[in-house]
């Protein structure tokens, strides 16, 4: 198969084709409770109801991508692939949005158009195609990070402009905006309330263990055990003692510390965040080259100056990696905390699960994923921005 120049793209295109043909692109239902009927991409394209521009916006880039499989892997080809994939992604979303709007126009506001598995997979494959092309183009990781964002920008613009408002997902959001906002606020609260104490406890612990060899084994043994215990178990295990504590010390109950709710969740999440923070602090400090420290001491810096001016900056990249892990982990685990009454997006997710509403589930899951991705990218960019300075 020597004429296939880009095997990755070929695989993605084939997979996309399978998804387009085999799964439903959208599902539509007369109302929220009725079961939906699937609409395949083929149906959608052939029945655009007088607005073929949508179909062309999606088909043209798709054809370009297929063609790019056989083109020589030059820089221009990669840029073409990147643009085509972005257009495809935007076009698919646009098609879904305008179909939803059309349906709402025909059958009224209670009709529901949902994004089907076909859409999600095609969107994912287009995004992967764009990312792969970006990685072949840009060598420096910072450009890759920025490039990935560029792919998302057109979607963001559409979203902000209200193009998606007739999709069931956004209708769900519109209906429950106050619940959503409350959940957002609770989720952020949980994450911050766990990370701050974890930083205040974990960083000094990591610092201490990097200075004292004796401390390391017992400290990390304990933290490892905590990390091993599954989140739901730790949440649950904290409930009984906290409930007993609140019962015997009434002032705590007045402060809001009870067996359920925020208290056990925050305590558990703080404990979980300790390991990545302590470990990355210790690892970051211990990888500072000894000759550099000695040189600084030789130049006459005091121990405190050596720490703040030499060790800390050099340990920062490793520490930031640990902070990134801790934050993403906490954002994700906070979802489970809803089971013990702490609220947050988990409440929406579990409500959706129990009532069988995929849109509710997505309404809870997507913001969590978006938060995690955003924080992850932000901290990665921060670490990259710091590194050239450190190497000077």
């Amino acid at each position, binding site marked *: 198969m020597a004429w296939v120049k880009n095997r990755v793209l070929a695989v993605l295109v084939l997979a996309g084709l399978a998804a387009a043909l085999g799964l439903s692109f959208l599902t539509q239902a007369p109302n929220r409770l009725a079961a939906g009927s699937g609409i395949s991409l083929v149906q959608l394209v052939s029945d655009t109801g007088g607005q073929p521009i949508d179909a062309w916006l999606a088909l043209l880039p798709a054809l370009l991508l297929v063609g790019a499989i056989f083109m020589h892997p030059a820089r221009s080809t990669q840029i073409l692939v990147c643009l085509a994939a972005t257009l495809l992604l935007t076009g698919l979303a646009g098609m879904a949005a305008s179909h939803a709007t059309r349906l709402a126009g025909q059958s009224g506001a209670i009709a529901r158009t949902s994004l089907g598995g076909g859409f999600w997979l095609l969107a994912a494959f287009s995004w992967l195609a764009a990312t792969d092309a970006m990685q072949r183009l840009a060598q420096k990781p910072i450009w890759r990070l920025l490039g990935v964002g560029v792919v998302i920008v057109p979607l963001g613009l559409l979203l902000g402009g209200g193009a998606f408002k007739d999709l069931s997902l956004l209708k769900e959001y519109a209906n429950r905006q106050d619940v959503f906002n409350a959940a957002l606020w609770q989720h952020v609260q949980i994450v911050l309330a766990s990370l701050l104490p974890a930083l205040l406890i974990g960083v000094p612990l990591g610092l201490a263990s990097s200075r004292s060899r004796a401390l390391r084994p017992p400290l990390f043994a304990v933290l490892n*055990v905590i990390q091993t*215990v599954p989140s739901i178990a730790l949440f649950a295990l904290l*409930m*009984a003692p906290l409930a007993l504590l609140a019962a015997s010390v009434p002032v705590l109950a007045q402060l809001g510390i009870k067996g359920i709710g925020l208290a056990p969740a925050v305590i558990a999440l703080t404990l979980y965040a300790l390991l990545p923070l302590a470990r990355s602090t210790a690892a970051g400090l211990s990888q500072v080259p000894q000759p550099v420290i000695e040189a600084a001491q030789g130049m006459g810096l005091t121990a405190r100056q050596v720490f703040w001016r030499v060790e800390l900056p050099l340990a920062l990249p490793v520490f930031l990696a640990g902070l990134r892990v801790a934050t*993403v982990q906490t954002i994700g685990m906070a979802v489970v905390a809803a089971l013990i009454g702490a609220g947050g997006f988990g409440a929406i997710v579990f409500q959706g699960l129990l009532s069988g509403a995929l849109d509710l*589930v997505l309404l809870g899951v997507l913001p*969590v994923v978006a938060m995690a991705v955003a924080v992850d990218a932000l901290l990665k960019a921060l670490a990259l921005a710091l590194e050239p300075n450190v190497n000077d």
Partner: protein
Amino acid sequence: MSGAASASATRRAWARDPLLWALAALLLLIFGMAQLKPLFAALFPALERPVYAQDSFFGLTLSHLKIVGLSSGFAVLVGVAAGIFATRASGREFRPLIETVVAAGQTFPPVAVLAVAVPVVGFGEAPALIALALYGLLPVLQSTLAGIASVPPAANEAAEGLGLSPWQRLLQVELPLAAPVILAGVRTSVIINIGTAAIASTVGAKTLGLPIIVGLSGFNTAYVLQGAVLVGLLAVVTDLAFERMAQRLGRWQAAA
């Protein structure tokens, strides 16, 4: 050391083995929870039923282990195979793509994967199996890539130059040398899966998380505690067992 002295030294080593203690505790609680009824009754006098009895703990444990075992088995097979592929000359093109998928996937909380699987395949064990298999794939893939990359290039070059075929090189040199790192990834994957399987009780899977969920909705803190202790112990025992395996596997490594 004389025979008797070395025998008693071995017995003392066994007595201090944390894995054995944890395993003993786990087994005792699985089979003997009902015996602790007086304890729970004393701790929670307001409860009518202080010990979870709707399913046997043994049955729940077996079901939990089955779900984790099947999904982790899949994750290990596919993850290691994909990792090997991405590190061969023929698969090198796919490596950035695979690394992107792994990195992106790990920003998803495992609960999210479980939650999204339900509307697709319904309630019960199926969403749990799918979610755990897919999510468990990621750490295994990542550690396979890292493990194979950690094989000293000199060992690879020597193996090739001495006349090992590519298969022989993979099976006799690369995989054994990558094994400790790969095992660490499998360990992470399995431990996460044990936790997610417990949460899967919310969608109808029968696991040790069920007493926790039932207890939470019925305000029965005793149930919650029983479920939590068992899940926690199961995870700890599994982790210790992996630790033991890692020690055996890494015997040839220099002391850190």
